[in-house]
């Protein structure tokens, strides 16, 4: 895979996780107790042997920069190739409106030109999976396709999600592709992992820019199915689409199931993340737990059921937490009660407070709040 580079297309594309992405980019959204969304596509690429990865930055890139650093956790801190952070286009001027990811790619054309790899894989970070690209890439070479899209057959999809469906013929040629269809007709959902020659990506960028179109997936691929030979390649492992708050919540809860947890974390390759020195999690004599994902550095003196705890979370005596996601360093004080809640980082829930959301509409408590 020395001949393949990766692009992580970290652009909003109309996706918002409301308060969760108010101050961070989608790619740096925390998930699964000790990860961020970008850990998955980045680890997948590295595990497949890709050594040159560009990440399109959107404007709220501070937390992403903190998390990724020079790419050391992924072994991408090299002098040749390695990790490249590609600034967004619209920060060069004062009054520009963000048009779409194509603009972002266009701004960083010189990076694409400079890279020596012949092929490129474009991946969107909000779809989480544990994937090795070797098979898909070999398939791409064998079929001689212009573009290969990786997909999964998903019987049920939630209306509140954000996904792209494809329709193929018997030879896996893509006949139709719909980005966020209002009515879903196809069961095959794109993993938003697109394999192609770099020259084709450059051609798509050029076509889009010169015709004033700005969405890579819609304008570059979906509307050019007659122009390019686009083929589909199936994935069978677990995937998590986190295209809306309810989907994001549901996916975190889903990972509490042992089979899904194992598939994601003990599957094809390790999922790397930025390491942080934290002591192991401490459970006191009062702790009562039942189905939990937890990072290190937590202190559990209360009751926790079916929840996801990030680094350094404190659940104090008598507090009860159920079906909730609690991010880094947040604290639930004595006898507080939480159910179906997403607590962002550095939040403090005061003693005795009760907060309840609904599984379909989890309550989100913004970063740094004291309640």
């Amino acid at each position, binding site marked *: 895979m020395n001949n393949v580079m990766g692009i992580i297309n970290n652009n909003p594309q109309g996706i918002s996780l409301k308060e969760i992405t108010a101050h961070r980019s989608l790619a740096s959204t925390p998930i*699964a*107790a*000790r990860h961020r969304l970008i850990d998955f596509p980045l680890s997948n690429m590295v595990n497949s042997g890709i050594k040159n990865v560009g990440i399109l930055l959107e404007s709220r890139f501070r937390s992403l920069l903190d998390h990724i650093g020079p790419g*050391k*956790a992924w072994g991408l801190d090299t002098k040749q190739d390695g990790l490249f952070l590609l600034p967004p286009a619209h920060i060069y001027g004062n009054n520009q409106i963000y048009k779409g990811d194509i603009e972002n790619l266009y701004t960083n054309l010189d990076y694409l030109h400079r890279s020596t790899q012949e092929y490129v894989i474009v991946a969107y970070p909000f779809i989480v999976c544990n994937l090795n690209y070797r098979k898909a890439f070999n398939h791409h070479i064998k079929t001689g396709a212009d573009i290969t899209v990786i997909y999964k057959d998903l019987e049920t999809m939630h209306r509140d999600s954000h996904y792209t469906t494809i329709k193929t013929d018997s030879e896996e040629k893509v006949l139709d592709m719909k980005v966020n269809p209002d009515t879903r007709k196809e069961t095959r959902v794109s993993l938003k992992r697109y394999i192609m020659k770099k020259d084709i990506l450059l051609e798509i960028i050029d076509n889009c820019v010169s015709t004033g179109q700005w969405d890579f997936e819609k304008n570059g691929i979906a509307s050019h199915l007659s122009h390019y030979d686009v083929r589909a390649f199936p994935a069978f492992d677990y995937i998590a689409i986190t295209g809306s708050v309810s989907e994001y919540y549901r996916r975190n809860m889903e990972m509490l199931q*042992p089979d899904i*947890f194992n598939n994601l*974390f*003990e599957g094809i390759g*390790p*999922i*790397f*993340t930025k*390491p*942080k*020195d*934290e*002591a*192991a*999690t*401490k*459970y*006191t*004599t009062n*702790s009562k*737990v*039942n*189905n*939990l*994902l*937890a*990072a*290190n*550095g937590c*202190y559990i003196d209360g009751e926790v059921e079916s929840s996801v705890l990030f680094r350094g979370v404190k659940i104090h005596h008598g507090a009860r937490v159920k079906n909730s996601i609690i991010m880094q360093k947040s604290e639930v004080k004595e006898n507080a009660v939480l159910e179906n809640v997403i607590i962002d980082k550095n939040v403090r829930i005061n003693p005795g407070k009760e907060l309840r959301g609904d599984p379909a509409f989890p309550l989100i408590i913004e970063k740094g709040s004291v309640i």
Partner: protein
Amino acid sequence: MSKKEIVAMLLAGGKGTRLGVLTKNIAKPAVPFGAEYRLIDFPLSNCTNSGIDTVGVLTQYEPLVLNSYIGNGSSWDLDRRDGGVTVLPPYLRETGGSWYKGTADAIYQNINYIDLYDPDYILVLSGDHIYKMDYSRMLAQHKQWNAEASIAVMEVPWEETNRFGIMNTDDKCQIKEFQEKPEEPKSNLASLGIYIFNWPLLKDYLESDAQNEDSAHDFGKNIIPAMLGEQRKVFAYNFDGYWKDVGTIKSYWETHMDLLAEKNKGLNLFDRSWVISSVNPNRPPQFVSRTATISHSMINKGTKICGKVENSVIFFGVEIEEGAVIKDSVIMPNVTIEEGAYVNKTIMGQDSIVKDNARIGVGETQEFDITVIGEGETISNGKIIEHGSVIG
């Protein structure tokens, strides 16, 4: 190389025979500790946190394991342009080569390394002590008092003085006499094996000690007494934090129980102002199933807990299956405890396996009799291991 004010030399050479089967395949400083760490993480992190960026690690045995754990030192911010951490095994010279004969000889054989940095001071440390200490304060006292050598000391209970090297000081903290494990102690100030020396002076002592065929080439037995004999200005530095030598099975287990204690006796691993760093293995979060019960324990990431865990410390990569019970134990990395097994007051070595329904640590429990299962051992189905046994 640029000049450094102080260089630390970490004596990590001990074979750790008192830790028995736990050090069969790994050097003592690489023994896992506290769910997340290895012993050597403590002195290395203390160095970094104290602003010391040049550390030589003296190791006696095949250096590969320690070398590969330490790597480039980046885990402790010791991958510096100048200095950083360097593993120093005994090596062959044109004139031959030899094992380090004692703690002083280990430093003596690496004078060239130290001289690269032309330091004013040398900090000598051990690799098997668990504590948090700001060496820069000790250095500040050393400089302020114009000392030639400083030795960190701690008050120990009078009844335990016969286990330590005891320092007798005058009212200005100057050390006048050193008693090794005395029957009739004159003070209860025990040496913690942490020394600061003026480097040019120490070099002189090391060189004359190296000529002395009767010497054991040991800091405690030879160098310090020689300095005291010549009325050198050797001062005590009083340390009042948590400090524990984990060189025995008993103290190793005890220190883990101290960690779990509600008021953890002063060693707070959660304190963000003095972080102990380690080589952070890349692992998934800990997974606690619907069938698990956990009480009064520390559990690392990369674990799967489906059984009952009580008053225990669980390292990464451990799986505890449904119905298994773990009590008062230390479970080292990558151990599997299968369904229905029972583990009581036991230290389980790395990569060991307890098969279905085996029972470890049963029978009458003596206060400090700990059961130890060596690295990579497998305890077969239904097997019963008596309390206090050592397997491996």
